């Protein structure tokens, strides 16, 4: 099977600054047709042509799944990241032609749930924008708890409050408002499913508390995209294709492999879906594993790496690619 998903040729139909950190981008199909339908929680991978470099970053679709005239994503500017969000903020203008993937959902609603309890932190609000729209249209039962740093950085907090009123509860860090998590998790009706999307610390906290309070693992859903982290450059030998490549500080291993003309499969580019799992043939050095796919044992074995988010420091690395 070919790599990734089917591509969509789109044009940027609008760019809307939302607050100091977040900008929203609207895409329409270049041929004027409707975009593919999607489900709440889905993401698309946006291709960014930044000079010589191509970046492929996943972003949650945040519009209503009922409206496929356009896709919308919200991008939080990360001044110390690898540059994808800066490219979106600085270089993407209305009218620009871009390519995005078909939607992929790795953070799906469990439609059996009697109630959907959603916990968002910061920009982790975006998948819930689509999920709440989907559930509201079907008369679904949901409740959203949203933590943000300040009221002015509470992206879409106003929109959500207006749409769903008391079904949305806001917590501001600067006012030292905190979710009373244990109370919240202990007082839910049977059949409730829990969804969490936000910083890794928040996801881990919620999952730990939920497990301690007896929530079955299959009722706890989380979106755990790790953005690829920058790091020291390193060299890799690709044994199958017979190529030697260098991974730059700001590049992911997967991007460097692709830049050399080799196309491993991928879907999420965030260490979650498992598609780009790659065998290590030999190595002399240490791995920096950032994925949520391989087991701890596999991380320790040094025999596998997820090139979308993980890196390497050392003398030599040979991969089965």
């Amino acid at each position, binding site marked *: *099977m*070919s790599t990734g*998903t*089917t591509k969509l040729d789109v044009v940027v139909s609008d760019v809307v600054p939302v607050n100091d950190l977040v900008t929203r981008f609207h895409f329409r199909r270049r041929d004027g047709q409707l975009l*593919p*339908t*999607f*489900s709440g*929680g*889905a993401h698309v991978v946006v291709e960014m042509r930044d000079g010589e470099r191509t970046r492929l970053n996943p972003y949650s679709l945040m519009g209503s*799944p009922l409206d496929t005239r356009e896709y919308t994503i919200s991008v939080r500017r990360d001044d110390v990241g690898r540059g994808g969000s800066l490219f979106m903020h600085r270089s993407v203008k209305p009218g620009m032609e871009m390519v995005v993937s*078909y*939607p*992929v*959902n790795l953070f*799906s*609603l*469990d*439609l*059996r749930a009697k109630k959907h309890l959603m916990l968002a932190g910061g920009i982790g609000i975006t998948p819930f924008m689509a999920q709440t729209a*989907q559930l509201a249209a*079907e008369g679904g039962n949901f409740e959203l708890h949203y933590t943000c740093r300040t009221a002015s950085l509470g992206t879409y907090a106003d929109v959500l409050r207006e749409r769903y009123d008391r079904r949305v509860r806001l917590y501001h860090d600067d006012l030292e408002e905190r979710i009373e998590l244990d109370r919240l998790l202990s007082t839910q009706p049977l059949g409730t499913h829990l969804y969490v999307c936000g910083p890794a610390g928040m996801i881990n906290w919620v999952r730990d508390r939920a497990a301690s309070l007896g929530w079955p693992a*299959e009722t706890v859903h989380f979106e755990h995209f790790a953005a690829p982290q920058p790091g020291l450059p390193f060299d890799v030998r690709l044994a199958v294709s017979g190529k030697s490549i260098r991974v730059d500080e700001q590049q992911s291993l997967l991007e460097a492999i692709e830049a050399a003309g080799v196309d491993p499969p991928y*879907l999420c580019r965030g260490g979650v*879906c*498992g*598609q780009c799992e790659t065998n290590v043939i030999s190595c002399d050095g240490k791995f920096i594993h950032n994925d949520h796919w391989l087991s701890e044992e596999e991380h320790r074995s040094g025999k596998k790496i997820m090139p979308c988010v993980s890196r390497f420091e050392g003398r030599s690395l040979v991969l089965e690619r």
Partner: protein
Amino acid sequence: MGITFRKETFRDDFTFKNSPEHIRRFPFPFHEDAYMYAVNIEPHVVGPRGSVLENLIDVDEHYVAEMQDRALVLAEDPLRCQSLPHMTLAGWDLLELLMEQQALGYPEHFTLTRDGDRWRWINRPLGIDDTFTFGDTSTLPYGPMEYITRQSQGDFCILDQRDGNLWMDAGMVTTQADWSLDFDIGMNFFEWHAPVPLAHEKGIFVRALKFLTNIQQGKPARRLNWTMTINPRLDTSPENYHKWGPDRATVTPDNVGDKVHLRVELQSFWRLPRSNGIVFPIRCYLIKMDELVTQPKWARRLHRVIRDLPDELANYKGLTRYRPALVEWLSKLDDGSPTSPGFGPD
């Protein structure tokens, strides 16, 4: 030019047969002179004109008769069609998929007009012209899955995806090779495949599940599966075993050509957009031995495949009782000469 739909039966007097054009388009499942399980999955893309892959959802000369047979099965046993409460959205996804594909492939027979969520569906072969509100179950005579699968050839399983597994949570199953939706409903991928011999040891289901849970929207996949059936009976269900099981004892050297049918399933896998479920259409094609052996390559190859099939597989597929008679009959059509590569007739 449209399809000429045959008047025929899949029960009682068994008048089902294939026209010469349909014999040539039969999806013969063996690309070499032997058969063993493999994860034989490939992208479900449009194939050559005149093949069953000409359209991604195939409608053929048996359409009307198959839909009549389905209605008879459902009248006797409504549990052949089930949808757990959380699967209604997936049913709408399937309705959209099948209406779009049938209208696209066969505009002379099917027309879909969409005006927002107001849809009009015209099915000329079955004399249906309905206007309804997409998403509003009260505007259709059945639930969305049942409505559209009463008008679409093949069985349909809708699988919910959660917890890294697939769950058989809805389906319309009336043309099955000896399995029961009513038994499997609510089971996960490993549970409903538990009875299959040999494949677990080969790790096939683990790999297949990994593949299926990653099926992407806009990128359906397919595989062929096969078994054999005595008489052209679509409904070989466990519920009706008493009706068709004894048929296996009726095969004699004189009636092999008429009674024994190769039964091929074209299975495809599609991601559903709103529900994030997977639909798994299982389209059944039947061909009697007399029809199949009009293609000499198929006759030679089928002889070698059936003769050399491992006993476990022959048993699982229910061939054991009549295999000797079938092999004997086919052997007379196998002169030992080589067969050309690939599925198609020479």
